[in-house]
């Protein structure tokens, strides 16, 4: 996040690699607009390539070394896709190539010397270690131009091209390999979650092998947003309750994911907690988490803290308008309560305090949120889903009595009632279970008894009944 703030700019300028960091922050910030990222990054890399090409052509005149100018471009292009890539490195190479291009244009040796000294003095703090390339490049330029060193070796043109291609393709290949992601799907899902596009999440997951907690969390969030969590819970892979909210493990990406999930649930306290942790990981410059913290602090009535985050976002051009718009909520609890986004966050805060997850998991928190705000069906559904995934059938029936009395049960709940009806057949009628469910359950038991001795019973059951709670209940271990 690039802040238009004197303190932020000066702090960075006076630290090692600071100018590169500022440039990359400004660059990255523009990416919040669709399609700007590929255009702006391509432009920076193109300019880097052009500057490098200009330097090479003047340092090695007549040597046809143009392809070498693509080396930094290709490497940086692929590496920019790599998770955790140090974006300021692109800015550093851009600065170094710019300085080299200017240096190579200078004719007067005195001017070149002065420029070299100033350039190095600027680049070392501004760009960090890549400034060594400026020194190296200037050295080559000196020996070939002023030193009179001529490379008189004659190679066939084709060989020169092949050599350059090798020099280009070998590091390019490794950079390409390093860029390939395990996390491309994650980035896509994260984007859709941010844009509140649950359908797009489900569509993306349908095309992928999604057998891990992270993707299960995304799928369940999308289902919950569409009001389909309890209807279609087992149409998607589920491992255990962590398929709803995975264990954090101090990873910044999961902190963002969890903050979003908790916010959807109306669990303001845990959403705030995760947003804060994520923001710390991003050095207090994650605008989405700062926005979340504005929301949670407003919901909790912590106006001074909310104001601090609003001020921070207001210094960033893409978020300024949003930040200014949030000022209306400062010291204005009635506006907060009636806001479409903040209102549910306030309503879900239970009147009576308790420690979060004090019963060992989030389920009890969700029940308290639902009781505080009966209109919050997402929290209600997550609670029920949690019980099913935890196989907590003792809690499930009272939960149904409290929240679903007189209502048609969603599919996964109806399936759970069938399990509970073993020994309590009156439950089937009590909850109005449909004949289709009753018949399918009978079919499930029949299929199981016919195939119980089969070695691949699990696979067979999954093929036939993988989308049912019964299959989960039978085969999934919950620790």
């Amino acid at each position, binding site marked *: 996040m690039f802040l238009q*703030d004197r*303190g*932020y700019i000066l702090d960075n300028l006076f630290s090692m690699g600071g100018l590169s960091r500022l440039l990359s922050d400004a660059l990255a910030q523009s990416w919040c607009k669709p399609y700007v990222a590929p255009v702006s990054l391509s432009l920076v890399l193109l300019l880097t390539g052009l500057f490098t090409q200009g330097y090479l052509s003047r340092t090695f005149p007549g040597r046809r070394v143009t392809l070498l100018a693509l080396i930094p471009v290709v490497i940086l292009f692929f590496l920019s896709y790599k998770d955790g890539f140090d974006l300021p490195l692109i800015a550093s190479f851009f600065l170094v190539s710019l300085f080299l291009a200017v240096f190579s244009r200078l004719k007067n040796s005195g001017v070149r010397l002065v420029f070299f000294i100033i350039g190095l003095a600027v680049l070392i703090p501004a760009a960090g270690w890549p400034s060594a390339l400026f020194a190296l490049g200037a050295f080559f330029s000196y020996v070939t131009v002023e030193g009179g060193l001529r490379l008189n070796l004659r190679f066939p043109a084709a060989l020169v091209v092949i050599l350059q291609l090798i020099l280009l393709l070998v590091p390019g290949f490794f950079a390409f390999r390093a860029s390939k992601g395990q996390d491309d799907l994650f980035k896509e899902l994260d984007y859709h979650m941010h844009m509140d596009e649950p359908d797009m999440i489900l569509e993306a997951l349908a095309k992928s092998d999604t057998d891990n907690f992270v993707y299960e969390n995304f799928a369940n969030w999308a289902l919950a947003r569409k009001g389909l969590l309890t209807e279609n819970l087992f149409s998607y892979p589920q491992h255990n309750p962590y398929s709803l909210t995975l264990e954090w493990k*101090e990873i*910044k990406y999961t*902190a963002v994911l969890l903050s979003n999930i908790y916010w959807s649930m109306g669990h303001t*306290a*845990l959403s*705030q*907690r995760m947003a*804060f*942790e994520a923001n*710390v*990981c991003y*050095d*207090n410059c994650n605008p989405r988490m700062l926005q979340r913290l504005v929301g949670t602090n407003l919901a*909790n009535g*912590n106006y*001074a*803290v909310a*104001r*601090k985050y609003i*001020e*921070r976002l207001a210094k960033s051009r893409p978020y300024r308008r949003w930040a200014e718009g949030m000022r209306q909520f400062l010291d204005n609890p009635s506006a907060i309560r009636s806001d479409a986004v903040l209102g549910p966050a306030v309503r879900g*805060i*239970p*009147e*009576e*305090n*308790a*420690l*979060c*997850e*004090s019963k060992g998991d989030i389920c009890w*928190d969700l029940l*308290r949120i639902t009781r505080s705000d009966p209109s919050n069906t997402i929290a209600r559904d997550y609670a029920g889903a949690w019980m099913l995934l935890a196989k907590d059938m003792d809690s499930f029936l009272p939960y149904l009595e409290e929240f679903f009395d007189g209502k048609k049960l969603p599919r996964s709940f109806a399936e759970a009632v069938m399990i509970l009806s073993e020994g309590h057949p009156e439950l089937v009628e009590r909850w109005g279970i449909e004949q289709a469910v009753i018949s399918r359950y009978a079919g499930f038991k029949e299929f199981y008894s016919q195939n119980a001795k089969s070695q691949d019973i699990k696979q067979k059951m999954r093929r036939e009944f993988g989308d049912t709670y019964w299959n989960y209940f039978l085969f999934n271990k919950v620790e």
Partner: protein
Amino acid sequence: MRKIAAIVTSLFLVSFAHAQTRPETIPDIDGVTVPVNIAPLHFRFADAPRKCAAVFSAEGREVRVKARRDGLVAIKPKAWRKLAEAAAGASIQVRLSVREKGNWRESAPIEIYVSEDRIDPVVAYRLIEPGYEVWNNLGIYQRDLESFREKPVITNDKADGACMNCHSFCNRDPERFLFHMRAKLGGTYLCSDGNVEKLNTKTEQTISALVYPSWHPSGRFVAFSVNDTKQSFHTTDANRIEVFDRASDVVVYDVEKHEIISCPQLSSEKYFETFPTFSPDGTTLYFCSAQSRQMPEDYSNVVYNLCSIGFDPAARSFGDKVKTIYKGSSVSFPRVSPDGKYLLATLASYGNFSIWHKDADLALIDLSDGSLKPVDDINSDDVESYHSWSSDSRWVVFSSRRGDGLYTRLYIAHIDVDGVASKPFLLPQDDPAFYDAFMKSYNIPEFVSGPVTVSQKRISRCAHKDEGIDLSFSMLSPTQPSK
């Protein structure tokens, strides 16, 4: 724009012309007491017109400082020093001066009291987000109180991103201090006269590695707590977080023998013992103790008393009786003044991690009779927590969240020989608006008598290269001198 400025100026002048009101400043400096050698107090006038000035006067001297375009009144250090020295024992008056129809009109003065008592020149603290579990960039820093200069003692980019905490100086000596590193390169690092020693402080007999430290005045021992600490979050409480111990004990580390000693009165399962601190003469060990409870269920019922036990440094033994000095609110961070007269502690309705308790306040105990002396001027509606004494017992620096309720800032207050506290002032900055944007909290403020000189490189080298010294443990019976 000019019309608006004129209207604002007129309204302002009308208001103070009628009532001769004293202007408000940000931060509040009206009525604070400062040491003669403190850095200049820079501030802004609240609700003042852009074109204004501050007139500083003391003992016949006057300095006029025009507010900058952003409203900052920044008196030059030299001018401030001269004024402060002239006003030592008296006060500096500050008037708001506003131009109206070609003339300057002045408000009633606000007073900055200047104590003749000098303050230790350095305060050390940790800068870290006021959070929860993860950390990013953090470090222990030292701030020159006579200027605005801040330098790192050690930052975690030199230590593979480790967490650092609990820095503690022996008698405020910059050449003798320790701190902990957690996670990577974990250990306790004891810095003494330029040497750095890494200690592996977890033993089989102790609950954890060593935690809250307090040096014995001789420098031979350091009292520590060992704690099994957990953290949870409130759904509704303004306190946000609850940090509690599931178990804790007090131990003493022998620096020369690399040995931890304790006794049953400090390591009982029936009690949570924590926050040890030595008396200035080193013969008494104060600590906090609460009846142990089921946690986290009973977290709000844990109340720590202030206790003490004798300590014989020559014999390396503890007294046989634990005395209860104070019982009432829950006590944390007891600290005895260097002159031995008072003990400053943090009181809250329950618990011990007081930085997360909005009702936490500082309290002064007169050690001659155990009575509580009111220090209401120091406290606010929000948290006051960690604190430390200056070497002459006249100043305390403490953590407070009175600004916004979350980001801890440092305040300094004068306490006179009779235990009367004066209004504290916020740690000065070149531009105090810095605090509005600053996203870190100031933790564990400790006065230091001079700059810390051990280099980061030295500490980093020790952290990366040294295996660390393993400590042994001895449990002593009462009055049993250890070998």
